[in-house]
Structure formats: structure tokens, C-alpha cells
């Protein structure tokens, strides 16, 4: 009996194998790494910026129609919010922009801290620049946003909101610091770090120009604010001081990690608005949902603009011979507004699944410089900046030489014939930004009301016939950060202006 007892007890002891010290030390994650090289985070962060901004459908879903580029197919019953300007805090694109950009910002915040820790200024400088890029987009959509309190995880679980203008001013400082860092890094970024940089391959010079151009965009946004000139000029002086200049011809910032025509690997804009990997016979839903707007088609056609055939297909996704756009507004599905009868997004924008995704193009930089020069903020020939900008837009789309276009006897294209040079620059900027970054055009329109004749929706549910001037804060903020978002007051998409929008 004793031996049996011993048998039992030893069984019990064996069961309690925990006596072995490490028996419970098995909580090491086998699925996701807890540490990776900063460069791997950089590659993804840049790709996410592309996919969350200019490559994201959110940057086009409402702006493209409101600003007169695209409309919604008559064969689809969706887009009621966009057609009517009526939306709630649950509105998808606004939620996506908020969520994706803050998510992306966290990656840059990590890189900035890593850069500081490892004394690798390249990561710090890129992170500062890209944080400015994201925050600046957030301000343009939402106005006051969490900034100083943001990105602090549970240390600040309900981040306070900062004034939009204060955020802008701090971004300008950030970009100064970044540009200065880049200046010191020219020629010094290691090839290893450069390999992770899927935008400029570690070219600190170009990064410096990118930071300067972004700062110029931020400053010009404030051009209509009374008494703001001194500030803008002072800030531009700092850009001039670092001497790196702005993005010039062929120096646009575009991201390409190696996009390829395979599911999940396509260029994000292409995968959203283009074709599935199966090719032309298999367009994406969005390619069929978004059709040309009558207003834009008329603009390019009336000015004999060679870009028409690159920005848009002929009707029936290129199967037809004519171009046609639709009026903005109707809700009831109208067969005449089907993709069969209307133009779709063109091949100049959908170059291919492997195309790089531009974040800030050379022609946008040139338009910004032209406007700055026109306003006397920077020196240089406004005309040549303007003409170079239009040419680079042609070049981007593959539309060849713009000289015939620029020399037409037209006040809409020809520098010499235009009475109001600013309107000329901004109208052509609108024509160039089509499908490149529709949010910029929306911002320019809010700032300057150019083009002035963009049609307002005639949708029956559009009871307030004003193109909205902002988005509402996402519902998640009302859920999880209510006191701070409620402190921003009652938000209206028609009246609660961003600080730089004084019209």
C-alpha cells in the first residue's frame, strides 16, 4: 500500500510540473516581433502616409465632387452624404482621415524618438517633416485638433485640443528644425538608412526641399488672414536662410515601396480608383462609381486642354469617342449618368499599378512658388514659375508640351492675357491638381473661392446650398474623448471655419 501511495504522490508531483522553475515562462509572443529596425518602421510609415492621404479614397470621396472634378455614377445609390452635404459624426471619410493620420503619426512619433535616442538625425528629421505633413492635413479638415497632448498613449488618454493656428505655427517651427537637420545631413545619410527611405532614397537635399515646400504651403494657406503678412514673410526668411530651396522640376516627393500589379500590392490610388490585378476588364468599384463632372469636362474642352484625354477616358471607360460629364446633385439613379455614358478617370492619373504615389508634386511646388512670388513673399519670375508649373502638370500626365496651351490667346491659360494673375495661377493650379490631391484644391477654394463658378449640388436633400468648409469631428472622439471635443462647441460643416478660411 505504501508503494501505491508513493506512486500516487509522485503522479501528483509530476502534475505540478510547475515545480520546474520555467514551466510558466512561456509568454513570449511568437506571432509579432517586439523590436524591429527603425528603417523598417520608416518604410511602412511613408507608405501609410501615401495610402492615407493622396492615395486614399478619403481624399477624393467628397472633395472631388465638391470641387468639380468628379461626380457619382447614376448607377449607384450611395454617396447621399456627399450629394446632399448632409453628414454626421459617423461620416466615413472624415473618420478615416482622422484615424489613419493619427495612426500614421504614431509611427513618425516613434521614429522621432528613436532618432533622438540613437542620435540618427535622419530619422528625426524625416519624422518631424512627415508629422508636419499629417498634422497640417488634419488641421485643414478639422481645425482645432489634439496636438501637444496627442500621441501620448495612456499617459494622456483624453488629449486636449489645441487651436488650429497654434498648431500651424508650431508645424512651421518643426519644419525649420527638420530642414536644418537635413542641411547637415546632405551626403551623409548611410546607404543602409537610404534603402529604407522609399521616397527620396536618403537624399537629404531633396528632403530639405520637401520640408521647405511643405512650409511654404502652410504659410500660403494663411495668405488671406488680415495682418498675417509680417508673420508669413518672417517665416519665409527662415526658409531662405537654410538655403536648400523648394522642390524643383523632377524633384517631387513620391512614395514607391515597389508597388506591383498584385492583390494588396498595387499603388493605393490605382487600387482604389483603377483596376484589379486582372486588368482593364476588371475595374474596381470606385472606377465605376466615380465619373467625370460636366463642369471639369467643359473647362478642359473649352480651353482645348490636351490634358483632358489623360485626366478622363472617353465615355464607357474609353470605349467611346466622346467625353462627357454629369451635373452634380441628382440622387435618383439616372441611366444617363452611368459609366456607359460618361467619362471615367483617365490614364494620366492611372498610369499603372506600379506607379509611385506623389505626396507633393513638383508642379504643386511650382504653383506654390508662383503664388508666393506673385504675392511678393519670395523673389523670382512669376511667369516662368507659372509656366513651368503648367508644363510639369502636362509632363506628369504624359500630355507632352504645354507651350501651345500656354500661348493660346486665352485669359485662362496665357500669362500675358490674364488680367488677374493670381486668379490665373490658382485656376491653373485647380486644373493641375485634379486627381492628384483634391484636398488641396478644396483648401484653395475655401481660401480664395477660385474657381468661383464651381456648381453647388442641386440635390433635393441639400437644403443648405453651400459647399461645406470642413468635416465634423469623428464619432469616436465624442465617444472616447467627449469633454475635449465638446469644448470645441457645436460644429457645423457650413459655418465652423478653419482659422485660415476667412471668406
Amino acid at each position, binding site marked *: 500500500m505504501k508503494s501505491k501511495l508513493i506512486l500516487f504522490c509522485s*503522479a501528483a508531483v509530476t502534475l505540478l510540473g510547475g515545480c520546474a522553475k520555467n514551466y510558466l515562462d512561456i509568454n513570449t509572443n511568437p506571432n509579432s516581433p517586439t523590436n524591429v529596425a527603425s528603417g523598417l518602421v520608416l518604410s511602412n510609415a511613408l507608405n501609410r502616409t501615401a495610402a492615407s492621404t493622396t492615395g486614399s479614397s478619403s481624399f477624393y470621396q467628397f472633395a472631388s465632387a465638391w470641387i468639380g472634378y468628379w461626380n457619382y455614377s447614376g448607377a449607384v445609390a450611395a454617396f447621399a452624404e456627399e450629394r446632399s452635404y448632409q453628414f454626421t459624426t459617423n461620416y466615413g471619410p472624415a473618420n478615416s482621415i482622422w484615424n489613419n493620420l493619427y495612426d500614421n503619426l504614431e509611427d513618425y512619433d516613434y521614429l522621432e524618438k528613436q532618432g533622438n535616442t540613437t542620435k540618427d538625425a535622419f530619422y528625426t528629421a524625416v519624422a518631424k517633416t512627415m508629422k508636419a505633413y499629417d498634422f497640417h492635413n488634419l488641421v485643414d479638415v478639422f481645425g482645432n485638433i489634439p496636438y501637444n497632448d496627442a500621441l501620448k498613449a495612456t499617459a494622456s488618454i483624453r488629449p486636449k485640443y489645441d487651436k488650429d493656428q497654434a498648431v500651424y505655427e508650431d508645424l512651421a517651427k518643426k519644419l525649420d528644425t527638420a530642414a536644418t537637420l537635413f542641411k547637415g545631413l546632405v551626403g551623409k545619410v548611410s546607404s543602409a538608412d537610404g534603402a529604407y527611405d522609399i521616397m527620396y532614397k536618403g537624399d537629404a537635399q531633396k528632403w530639405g526641399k520637401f520640408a521647405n515646400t511643405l512650409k511654404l504651403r502652410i504659410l500660403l494657406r494663411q495668405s488671406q488672414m488680415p495682418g498675417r503678412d509680417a508673420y508669413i514673410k518672417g517665416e519665409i526668411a527662415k526658409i531662405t536662410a537654410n538655403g536648400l530651396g523648394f522642390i524643383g522640376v523632377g524633384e517631387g516627393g513620391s512614395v514607391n515601396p515597389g508597388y506591383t500589379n498584385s492583390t494588396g500590392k498595387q499603388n493605393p490610388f490605382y487600387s482604389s480608383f483603377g483596376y484589379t490585378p486582372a486588368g482593364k476588364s476588371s475595374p474596381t468599384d470606385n472606377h465605376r462609381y466615380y465619373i467625370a463632372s460636366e463642369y471639369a469636362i467643359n473647362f478642359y474642352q473649352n480651353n482645348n486642354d490636351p490634358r483632358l484625354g489623360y485626366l478622363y477616358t472617353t465615355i464607357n471607360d474609353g470605349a467611346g469617342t466622346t467625353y462627357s460629364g454629369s451635373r452634380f446633385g441628382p440622387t435618383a439613379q439616372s441611366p444617363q449618368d452611368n459609366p456607359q455614358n460618361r467619362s471615367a478617370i483617365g490614364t494620366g492619373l492611372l498610369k499603372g499599378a506600379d506607379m509611385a504615389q506623389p505626396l507633393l508634386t513638383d508642379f504643386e511646388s511650382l504653383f506654390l512658388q508662383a503664388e508666393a512670388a506673385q504675392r511678393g513673399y519670395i523673389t523670382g519670375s512669376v511667369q516662368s514659375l507659372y509656366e513651368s508649373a503648367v508644363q510639369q502638370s502636362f509632363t506628369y500626365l504624359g500630355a507632352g508640351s504645354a507651350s501651345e496651351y500656354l500661348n493660346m490667346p486665352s485669359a485662362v491659360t496665357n500669362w500675358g492675357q490674364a488680367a488677374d494673375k493670381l486668379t490665373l495661377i490658382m485656376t491653373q493650379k485647380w486644373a493641375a491638381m485634379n486627381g492628384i490631391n483634391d484636398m488641396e484644391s478644396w483648401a484653395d477654394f475655401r481660401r480664395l473661392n477660385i474657381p468661383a463658378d464651381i456648381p453647388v449640388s442641386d440635390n433635393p*436633400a441639400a437644403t443648405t446650398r453651400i459647399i461645406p468648409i470642413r468635416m465634423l469631428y469623428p464619432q469616436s472622439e465624442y465617444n472616447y474623448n467627449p469633454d475635449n471635443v465638446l469644448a470645441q462647441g457645436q460644429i457645423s460643416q457650413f459655418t465652423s471655419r478653419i482659422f485660415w478660411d476667412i471668406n
Partner: protein
Amino acid sequence: MNLFLHDRIDLNKIMKVTLSQLAIALAITGASYANTSKAQSVALERHINLSAKNTALKSVLKKVAAMADVKFVYSKDVINADQLVSVDANDITLKDALNNLLNQHNIKYEVINNAIVLDNKPSTGSDITITVTGTVKSSTGETLPGVAVAVKGTTTGVSTDANGKYSIKVPDNNSVLVFTFIGFTRLEVPVNGKTNLDVVLRDDVRQVNEVVVTALGIKRSSRELGYATQQVNGKDLTAGRPTNLATGLSGKVAGLQIIQTNNQIDAGDQVRVVLRGNRSFSGNNQALLVLDGVVAPLTYLNSINPNDVESVNILKGANAAALYGSEASNGVMIVTTKHGKKDVNEVTYTNTTSLNQLAYFPKMQTQFGGGSGQDIYGFPQYTPFENQNFGDRFDGSIRPIGRPLPDGTIQMVPYSNQSGEKEKFFNTGVDEQNDLSYTTGNDNGSTYFNIQRLNSKGYVPGDKSNRTAIRLNGTRNYNKFKLDYTFDYTQRNIDKSNAQLYNNVINTPAEIPLSQYSDVNSLYGNLNNYFNDYGLNPYYYLQQVRNTERKDDLLGSLTLGYDVAPWLNLTAKGGINTSTRNGKDITQAINYSDFATASGKAIANPQSRQAGEDDYSLFKSRMEGSFLATFKKKIGDFNANLILGTQVIQESTRVLQVGTSFLVVPDFYNIGSRAGDASVTENNTKYRREGAFGDLTVGYKNYLFLHASGRNDWDSRLSKENRSFFYPSVDLSWVFTDALPFLKDNKILNYGKLRGGIAKVSAVQFDPYQLQATFSVGSGFPYGNTAGYSVGNTVYAPNLKPEQTVSKEIGLELGFLNNRISLETAAYWETTSDQEILKGINISNATGFTNAIINTGSGQNHGFEVSLKGTPIVNQDNGFNWNISVNYSYNQNKAISLYQGLPNLSIQNDNYIVVGQPYPVLMGSGFQTDGQGHTVVDATSGYPKLSQTNLLFGQTTPKNILGVSTSLSYHHFTLAGTAEYRGGSVIYNGAGSTMDFSGISYGSATNGRERFVYPNSVIETSPGVYVPNTNVTTNSGGIDYWAGSTTRYGVMQNYVTSAAFIKIRELSLGYEVPVEYLRGIRFIKRASFALVGRNLFMFRPKSNPYSDPEFNNTTDNAQGSTGLNQTPPTRIYGFTASFTL
């Protein structure tokens, strides 16, 4: 000394030995025992525990011999050692036990030299005048062997044989026979001169000393228990002839909520089981299923054959947690399957065939046909290829549908409502289940074997599945060792459509003769020619996206018990449970003809869609081992029972998935034959737990019991510092009817027990690896050789703790009229703090993260339960019996706090935890009100104005649950039924949204598609000033309103309704073939038949015309949200036949 071992000596050889002769013989040999003689009387005072039912006397004696260390001596001539006896001795003296056991069988005994010598009692002396014979049966018609039959006032007694027959000699015509049998109410029948007395014994409603199976399979007398249990015996379970355990239990236990969230072919995996509502915000609130001592997934409830089940015991509170560990914090369902019976060799074959028929379809409009356009005056226009129903009013004219075919023809149909076309899409499903079981047993052990095969044809056309299950249970006795094993293997094969069919079917205009398109190769049914510009022919859709899956589940346990001494038992136990899923999802390629694409048919553009497939493989295993030492001791009036144990558990999972959306060879679904990159994922988890526990019960005079337990766990999922944690419980049970002299032998109140307890449970619900932040592979990466990682979106805390629940409960149990009526009530209060937010608490995205995995917040849950059972009618003469049981529970909870003042937490599917509210609650988009219940409308458009922020609609778990089950039996017929009511919660009906959008909903035609004044509306004339709206009509009453996302279909408020329902869950009529009819058929012992109907009726509030409110998108805590992934509800009609050989 071998002489005294009755099984080793053939006493037949000592013919006619009288008791006195034996005594002399013993006295002679007794010399050698002289030194132990003083133990003789002690032996009779020894306390024993013995429970046997219908067991041969000799084996009972053998057990007693082993237990009390005594020997029995008797002659096989004098004593029928093979007669079946029953005894239920729970910690009583050997003397009392022997008196109970032997007296009723007319046996007397005497202790001689440590041997107990048996003999027949002398006859009563009076002349035996009458012999009465008869058969004893249960109310369900089963014959009952082993029933004690005695003549009242005498010591004459016999017991029934294996066929329930008895023969007894009674002194005279006025004699009264007394029938007693465990589990049945004692019955007295006057002989009145009859020589044949067949009687029916009534089930004892609730035995005072009912033995219930508690944690770890420990059998306890119900009077000892200080916590809430409710036992459902096999008989109650199968009264309604359910095909699975989940349906058999619904409505039968107070506080138990079983939710079948879907009724697809593999719906068995979509079951949610909750006891006493929700405690945890986001963690598991579901009961623990313990099948034959092994923790098993709840989906087993749907595969266990109810006929296999001996009993289901529900431990409602957390007091069993010490023995099972923290998984038991939500209550435990202990399912014990049948074991072989000693000396019973039986083969039972059961066939159950049931038909599954579409029961409820949402109410739809019948006035308007296909269309979505309007003419310039705003009148609706007919569109032949539309799937929305916003055309003009039906006029019966002959109109074209679809687009013209290449040869110019077009299908013409009358423009009128085609009723029943959508319903016809669904088939009648057929389930055919065959069960064969074999049971055998002898002194050395028992075996129970069951093989089951279920073939199912789904009510969605083309869906099919099968299930093959093998169960082997057995026991083996080797002296003081007892080996107990269970083995269960189930294989299921499922082949089903993955299509969102319901959506597709509903999105078909009212004039479409849908059933004409069942042939997908027909002229108008084929891909290119199907009328619908926006949707596939649903008959084609069925085959276009499909899933096949094989599931293998294995469950086994091995228990080795060793009785070291009468006061000490050691048990070692091992269990394993594995489940494997291997499946493939396929999507067929679609290629439209050039003509179809060129015609402008919307769905034909894109002209081609690639085929895709997804392969997945999942393996899950759980292994546990435990060791128990059980001590029993009686000191004076005190009786103690102590269990000490240790336990080790390991759980691991492995998931592999590969998929592609670009297959290149037509109809060839292999990941290798693709273009582009495949998607590939791998996920592994493993964790371990160890526990050490103690559980002590001290009883005083068999009426006052104190039970206390404590357990310490060590869990690998927590950091070293937090890994070890302890939780105790204590409860008290007081049988006041035994304790208070003035209540003893009360004719009305025969049983009364008051109990109360408090328990704390600490539970780790987190998945492994939740202590440290990780990087995730960036979306889209790798691009070729370029890799990218993202900082994860979740904040982790290294110091996570277990979630703690403290639960207090009190209860009262009463038995009236010899337990003909029994009442059990309980009230409980639970507080759960340090809530483990499994998917992480939602935090503002501006923090850079979306979730934080932390312990935070607390919630309170309270409620009460009433369970009333009774037998209102027992009529011996006409064989009419009526049993009824009513189970009611009320449960309410409230979220007390969250994290750092956060007001709410999303748990998906629009369910939220909101501080100060019950949890979870439903929140979503809605309209502005003036604060007095009027909807604010726009002064120009007449449309309601959206509230910019979400509205709170109410809780999604029922407050009140009432179950009633009843059975009526008349001779060999039994009519049984169960009804259930659940109420006090709301649900979002996704179907309503789709139906409004497509214009098929009944509501969308109620105003004739005319403009209307929005009901009960006001207009805001200046901020905060509202005037009633009497004349501003909506801009549209047609498509713009009903298919408007901001006015109707996209606004959640429009589709939130009460989730209340009353269901007749089951109704059955059973017939047990009388034994006499079977006499001719030698090989059949018993036969029974039953007709069964399930979910025959469902009553809902008028506001919910959509679907079964029990259906849900998930089985997790976020109940209260349905979509169109759930197919419509069905009724089930079945037939079952059972034969025992």
C-alpha cells in the same frame, strides 16, 4: 478464514446449514479472532456512503464489505443474492444502512465474529391467502426493475425483477402494498381483492436527498449545497425529444440563457450560453461546459445526443470555481453521459428524422414593382432591370423584365405582385440522425458505447453536412482501484454556401418570378441574361461562393481512483480535448459575355472577376491533469469532507491560412495555381495554468452544512509578479425542516432549506502575449524584398491582473406535500472589478493608439431566480399525470466605472459599455428631438434632422426570462412542451435597412410613396424653440426618402426594436409501446415513438416584423445586432423512434 469470504466458498455444499449451526461453527473458529472481537460493535457504528440502484444484492454487499471492512456470510439457497436492490446511504451508520437495505427484502442479520450473517426473516406466521402479481412502470411507461414492494404493516417484501414484475403473498384482501423506489414517490395501493396490480410510479419531483453531481464529478446530497444548482435529469431533457442538448435545456433552468444565434447548416457553432447575465464587460461571460469531467467547447452542446445524457447539472454561481479554476466564474454546466449499467446488456437504436422549414419571412409590400428612377415630375418610373422596388404601382399589364437578349427577345411578365416567390427559394431541410448504443456491465466494470451519424440537408439549397460521433465510456474495478474512462470523437463535414443569400433574395422586386430561375443554365436564369442589373441570380450565387470544412473533435479522459482507506480516496485524472478545422472557401470566377457588358448591364462591368480561394487550418488543444485527495471524517455530530487537489492546464492554438483572389485555371481551386502574391498568416498561442486548492464541507447533524474553499492559481499569461493569485469562497446550508423540531414531519412543508454564500473568483481572460507592445507587418508589405513594420495600435500594460468577481447569494428551497411541489429561489449580487478589456479599451485615436489592454472599471450584476416544479395531477386509476415546471429569472447589471473617466467602450456591433447604464447597450445614429419625444424636421425638406452624435437605445441582454415546461401523460402517451419568454432588451434589425433601401419593406408602401408629414414632428424656429409640424411634407415619399441614407436606411434608430419574444420551443407527443405488445417480438425489450415540433410559434411585438430576435451577428457579448448573414427563422418537425434490444 477463507470460509467467510462468501464468494470463495460454495455454501451450497453445506446443505441446510442453519443459522445456529453456523454460529457454532463460527464460535469454534472464532478463537482466532478473539483479539478483534471488540471491533464487532464498532463495525456497525461505522459510517458509510453507499449509493446503488437496481444492483444485485451480492455486489452491494461486496461494496459494503470493502467499505466497512466487514464480511458477509449467507447461503445462496436462503438468500437470493441476485435480487436487485437499491440503497442510498449517505454517511449513515452501517447499522442503519443494513436495516434500510435488508429489511425491505425480508432479510435479517446478525454479527458474529466480525462477520455479518444473513438469513430470511421468519414468516409472519399468518396463513398466506393471496398472491398478488403485477408490473411496475414509470410514468413514461418504462418498466422498473428493483422496486421494493412490501405489505404495509408487515415485514413481508419483495422486489421487482428485470422486467418490472413482482409477485408477493399478502395476508388478506385488505392488505395494502407499498411501492418504494429511489427517484420515485412512495406509493400505497390497497389490494382490494385484486390479484393483479399494475402500478405506475410517479417521479419524485425533487428528492430531498437527491444526489447531485457537483464540481469534479463529486456527488453530493443536494441538502449539503450552499450554492445554487439546478439539475436536469436525462428524463426531463428528453421529454420533448430534442435532437441536441442545447434545445433540450432551453427554458428548463432558471437563469440559463441559451442563444442560437443563427440557423445555418453549421449553426451548432453559433451558440451562446449565459448564466445570470453578463459580469465581464468584454471578457467571456459564457458558462463552462464540462463533459464527463473534461472542459469542452460550448459547441458540444449541439452535438451531444440527449439520449446519451445521464444528467446535466448547472452550477449557477461562482462557488465551484475553487475546483475548476477561474473558468468557472460564469457558472458550470456539468454534463454526465451514461455509463453502462451492471448486469444490463442492452442495445438501443434511435432514429430521429426532422424537417426544417422556413417559418417566418418579414412582411413585404405588394404594391410597387422594380424601379429607381423618377420622371421630371417626380413620378416613379418602372425600370425592367432594377433590383429596387421604387417603380410605379402594379397595374397588371404585361411588361418586360431584364434587358433585351442578343436576339432581341425579352422576358415579359404581368406587372403584379408574385406572392411566395421569395419563400419558395428555400427548401425543406432534412436532418436524419441514427444512434446505436450498447451498454453492458458486471462486477468488474461497465461499458457504454454509442455511435451516431447525422446527415443534414440544409434549407438553403445545396447546403449539406454530416456528423459521425463515437463515444466510449467505461469503468473498470480492480480491488480498491477504480478506472473510469471516456472517449469521444466527432467528425463533421460541412458544405455550404457562403453567399449573403438572404440579402440577394430580398433585393428582388415583387413582380419577379424568382423560382423560374432555379436552373442557372436556363434562358433567363443564366449569368448573362438574368434580369437583375445589380445582383446575381441567387441560385447561381449559391454555387459561386462556397465553403467546405471538416471538423474533428476529440475528447477523452482517464480517471484512476484509489480507496486507500474508508476515509481517504486518492484520484488522478487526465483529460484532453482537441479540435481541428480544415476548410476551404472558394469564389468562382465570373465572366460575362461581350454582349452583356456592352449592353450596359451594371453587374457585367467589370466583365470578369477572378476566382479566389482561402485555405485554413486550425488546431486547438487543451490538456489538463489533476490530482485529488478526499478525506472523510465523522466526529460526534460533525461530519467533515475535505478535498485537496492540484491541477495543471495547458491550452494551445495554431492557425494557418493561405489565400489568393487570383486563380488562373478555371474551376481549379488550388493556391498553387494563382497569379500574384498569396496572402499568408500564421498565429500560435500557448498558455499554462497551475492551481492548488482545498474544499472543505462540515456537516452538523445532517442539517447544517458549512462549505469553504480556496484556490491559488499560477498563470503564465501574467507577469512573474502578478502570476500567483488566490480566491476563496464560503457558503452555508441549513435544512430548517430537520433542524427545527416543530417543523419535523410537517405534512405540508416537508422540506425547507435556507442557504447563503459568498465567493470571489479571479479570472485571467486575456489571451497570451498581452503584456508587451509589438510591431505589426505593415499593410501591403512585403513589396518584393521591401519589408515594413508598423507600431501596433494597441497599448499594453505589463502589470495586468486577473479580473475579480465577488458574488454573494442567498437561496431558499422548499418542498411541499412530499415534494409534489417544490420551489427554489435565489438572489445574487455580483461585482466585477479590474475588468479585463480583452480587445482593449477604446481610446481617442489622437493618442496614437486605438486600444489599451488594461484592467479597468467595474460593473455590478444582480438578479433573482424562481424555479417552481409540481405535479398537479396524479391519477393512478386512469394513468393520467401532469408535470409542470416554471423557471423565471430577472437579471440587471450596471457599468459603474470605466477608465480615467471614459464614459463608454465599444464592444463591436454597435454595442457599448456606458457608465451608469446596463451593459452592453446599443448606440447608433438617430434623429434630433425637441427633448419631449418629437422629432425635429427640416423646415424646407420636411425630412427628420440627424442627431450629430449617437443615440442610446437600450440594453441588449434580456432582463426577464421565463421558461415553462410541462408534460402530460396518459397511459403510454406523453405530451410535452416548453415555452420561453425573454424580454427587456432591444435589437438592431439590419434586414429592415436593406428592405427599406430596396423598397420591398411593408413600411415603405404604407404612405403610397406619397409625400407625407413626418409623424410626431416639430420644426425648430429659433434655437431651442420648436413648433409642431403640421404641414411641411417630406420632399419625397419615394426612393429619395426610403433609400436615403440620411433619412431612412442609414439611420440606425429606424430599425431598433424590442427584442422580446415568446417561443414555443418544443412540443412533442411520445408513445411508449406497452411491453405486452412486444412479447411476440422476442428481441425487442422496449420501443418508443415520438412526434416532435420545435420553434413552432414565435410571438413578437408588432414593432419587430423582421426576424427572430434571438439571432445575432456574433456569439460574443455584443448581442442585439442582426444582419442578413442570418437566414430567416425555421420551424422543425420531427419523428423519432427508439428500440431497445
